[in-house]
C-alpha cells in the first residue's frame, strides 16, 4: 500500500529525438501537477482500501455496541444456514463507518444557515450520522428502560421486534429523535454492512454473498455470458481473496 515519497523519484526518459517534453510526476502528491509528454506513472501506485482492525469499538461505547449488535440480530436474524447480523459483523461495520469519514460527514456541504425544508430537499441538519446514532441509540435504550426496565439489548427478542415495528410505523416515538427515520437508517446501514466487502467489517467470511449466490469481486465473465439459466459455480471472492487462494 505504500507509494514512493519524493517528487523526483520517477526516473523518466526524455523523448529527445521526437522533441517531446519531459515528465516529472508523482502520483502520490496532493499537489496539482502539470502532465505533458507521457502518461503519469509510479510503482505501487493506487489507493487500496484500508482493512479494518478487529478489536475494541472505535466509535461506540460498550452500551452502544451492545445495542447495535442486538439491533443487527433483529434486522438480520440467525437462521440455520446463515449467521445473523451480529455474527456477520454488521455492528462492527457500522462502528468503523461512524468512526471514519462517513460518521464525520467529510466532504459534505456543512455551511450555515441550517433551515428545515421539504422532505425532497434532503438532509438539512448539522448533525451527521455519528451524532444521530449516539442520540438515537441513547433514546432507544431510554425508551426500553422505561417500557421494559431494561436496555434494548436485554429485552426479549419478540419484544425487540415489536419495538422496531413500532418505530417503523410511527406508533412508538423516541424522545428527541425521529424514530422512524432512525430505524430506516439503522436498517439501511446494517444491511449495507451485511452485503459490503468483508474488508469493511461486515459480511464476515462472505456469508451474505454465499447466501444469495453473488460471486464477489470478480472481473471476467466472458465464458459465462452465453450460458443462460445455469448456476454459476465459483465461490465468492473478496478484495482480499478467498479460501481458494490458500496453498
Amino acid at each position: 500500500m505504500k507509494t514512493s515519497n519524493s517528487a523526483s523519484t520517477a526516473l523518466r526518459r526524455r523523448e529527445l529525438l521526437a522533441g517531446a517534453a519531459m515528465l516529472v510526476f508523482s502520483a502520490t502528491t496532493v499537489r496539482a501537477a502539470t502532465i505533458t509528454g507521457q502518461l503519469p506513472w509510479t510503482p505501487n501506485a493506487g489507493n487500496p482500501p484500508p482493512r479494518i482492525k478487529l478489536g475494541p469499538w472505535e466509535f461506540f461505547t460498550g452500551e452502544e455496541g451492545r445495542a447495535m449488535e442486538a439491533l443487527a440480530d433483529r434486522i438480520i436474524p440467525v437462521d440455520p444456514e446463515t449467521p445473523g447480523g451480529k455474527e456477520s459483523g454488521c455492528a462492527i461495520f457500522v462502528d468503523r463507518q461512524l468512526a471514519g469519514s462517513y460518521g464525520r460527514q467529510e466532504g459534505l456541504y456543512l455551511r450555515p444557515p441550517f433551515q428545515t425544508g421539504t422532505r425532497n430537499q434532503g438532509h438539512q441538519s448539522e448533525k451527521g450520522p455519528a451524532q444521530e446514532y449516539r442520540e438515537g441509540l441513547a433514546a432507544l435504550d431510554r425508551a426500553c428502560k422505561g417500557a421494559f426496565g431494561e436496555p434494548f439489548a436485554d429485552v426479549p427478542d419478540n419484544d425487540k421486534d415489536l419495538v422496531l415495528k413500532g418505530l417503523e410505523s410511527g406508533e412508538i416515538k423516541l424522545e428527541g429523535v425521529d424514530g422512524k427515520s432512525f430505524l430506516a437508517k439503522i436498517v439501511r446501514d446494517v444491511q449495507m454492512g451485511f452485503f459490503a466487502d468483508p474488508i469493511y467489517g461486515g459480511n464476515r467470511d462472505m456469508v451474505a454473498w454465499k447466501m444469495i449466490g453473488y460471486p464477489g469481486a470478480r472481473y471476467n465473465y466472458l465464458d459465462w455470458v452465453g450460458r443462460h439459466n445455469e448456476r454459476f459455480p465459483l465461490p465468492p471472492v473478496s478484495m482480499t481473496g478467498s479460501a481458494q487462494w490458500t496453498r
Partner: protein
Amino acid sequence: MPRRLPKKDVVIVGFGWTGAIMANELTDEGLDVIAIERGPWRDAPTDFPPSYMQDELRYRVRHELFLRPDQLTFTFRNRMNQAALPIRSWGAFMPPNGVGGGGVHWNAEMWRFLPSDFVLKTHLTERYGASFLPEDMTIQDWGITYDELEPSYDRFEYLCGTSGTAGNIKGKIQEGGNPFEGPRSRAYPTPAQAQPFSHTLFGNAARELGYKPFPQPSGNLSQAYTNPLGLRMGPCTYCGFCEWFGCSNYSKASPQTTILPYLVRKPNFALRDKSEVVRINLDRSGKRATGVTFVDSSGEEWEQQADLVILSAFALFNVQLLLHSNIGQPYDPVTNTGVVGRNYTHQTMSTVNGFFDNKKFNFNPFIASGAIGMCIDEFNGDNFDHGPHGFVGGGYMGQVQTGARPIESTLVPPGTPKWGADWKKAVKDNYLSTVKPGGGVHGSFYAYRDIYLDLDPAYKDRFGRPLMRITMDLKENEIKQNKFLTDKFAEIIKAMGAEKLAVQYRTAPYDITVYQTTHLNGGAIMGTDPKTSALNRYLQSWDVPNLFVLGASAFPQNPGYNPTLTVGALAFWAADAIRSQYLKNPGRLVDA
C-alpha cells in the same frame, strides 16, 4: 494577486469528453493548448485496478470518484415561491470530478438523438398544433439538423469503437437494429455485445408483443478494437461494475482509453490537474475573453491567458462559470428575458422490477455491462401518435440492467417486510431471479419557463461566491409521459414471465434525494436567436466570440436518450467549425 503564466493559444476549462476531444483537434491544428481540470488525474492501472475497483460501498455508496459537495454544490427548490436549500449530500445526480470527467464512470450508453429531436418545436407544432403544447413549455429548435451532425456522430462512435447493430444505413432499414433511428452513413465499428439471459428474454418478450427490439449501442466493447488514433481497447468482460466505476481493463470508452495516451505525447499539449477555474476573464469591452483565473490545490491563484477559451466543465459548471464571469445576460423567468440559466432540464426516469420463480429462472444478474440490454424505441420522441394521449415526448425502454451489486440489488417483492427473518429469506430467494432494469424507462424532459438556473441569494461556496440555484419540478406533461411509458414497460416485464412486479413511476415533486441520472442539460443553450439562446449553432457564445461552451448545457431540451453521444458529436462539430472557419477569421461565425 494571481500569478501570470505564459500565454497559450487555447485554454480548455474542464477536461472530460468535450475538453479532450477539443484538445486533440486543436493540437492537431498546431495550436498550443493547455487544459485545466479541477479534479485529479486518473487512469485504470493506477486508480481503478481490478484488485479493488469492485467496491460497491466505496464507489457507489460513498461515491469516491465524484465531486465533494464541500468543494462545490448547488441549492435546490421545486418552485419559485420556495426558499432554495443547499444540496448538502448528492442524491438525484452526482457531478463528476477529475480527468476524464463523466467519461470515466459513465455506462457508455451511446444513443443518437432522432432527427425530429433537433427541430422539436417546429415538428411538434406542425404535427399537433401550437395549442397542444403546454403554455409554459419553452422548447426550441437547436439551430442544427441531424443530417448536419451525422458525420460527427460517426466520428465519435468510431473513436469509441461502439458496439451495436445499425438500424438505418443511408435510409435502408436494417434487420435487428433500431428501425426508428436517423439514417447513419455506415455500420457500427464493432458488433453488438452479447446479451445475458434476462436481457435476451426481454428482447424475446418484446418481439412477441409486436415491438422491434434491438441491442443498446454500447461503448463497452464486444471485441478488441484499435481506434483511428491507434489506441487499443479490449473486450468488455461483463464485470457488472460499470456506472460509478472506472473500467479496469481498457474496454469502456473514456477519454483515457480513446484519446489521452495519444494526446499527451504531443509537445503542444499540457494538462494541469487539481486546479479549479474560478473565472473567465474578459477585457474592458466585455466582448473578448482574455483567459481564465484558476486556483490550484494549495490555494494559490494563477492567471492563464489565451486567445481562445473553451468552456467544457460539465453542463452545470459551465452555466455557473458564465454567471460568475458575467458572460451573457442571466435568465429571469418573471420577465422572460436573458439567456444564461434558461431551459434547464433533467431526464424522466422510471423502472419496473420483476420477481421471477427462482426454480425456473437464474439470471446470474451480476454478469452485465454498462450499456447492455435489449431496448425498444416505439415510444420515443414523436415515434407514435401523441394525439390521443395528451402529452408530448417519450423515451426508449429496455431491460438495461447493468449488474447486481448486492448492497443495491437485494430487492424483495412488494409487501415483504424491510427487515427480519422474512426479509432475509426473501432476499435469498429472489437475488438470482429478479429483473432490476435500473433506468428501464428513459424518458424526455422538455423545457419550461420556471425550470431554470440562477444564483442563490443566501448560500456561498468556499470562495465566497454565491452557489448556483436549481429550480426544478416535474410537470404534468412528463408525469403523463412517464405513466404511459412505464405501463407499457410493465407489460413487457410481465410477458417475460415475472410473477410479481414492482412498478415505480416517476412522480412529482422532483426529489433531490433519490438518484435518477446525471443527465443535466441546458442553461447555456444553442439556438438561432441570441434573445433565447446563449450560443449559436457552433456552440460559440453570442456575447464573447472567442469563447465556445461545450456540453449538454447546449441542449435546448432533453430528448428521451442518454446525452453523451450527442455531447461528443457537438464537440467534434464545434471543433470542425473552429478549425475550418474560426481560426482563419476569428470573430462571430453567425450573424445575430
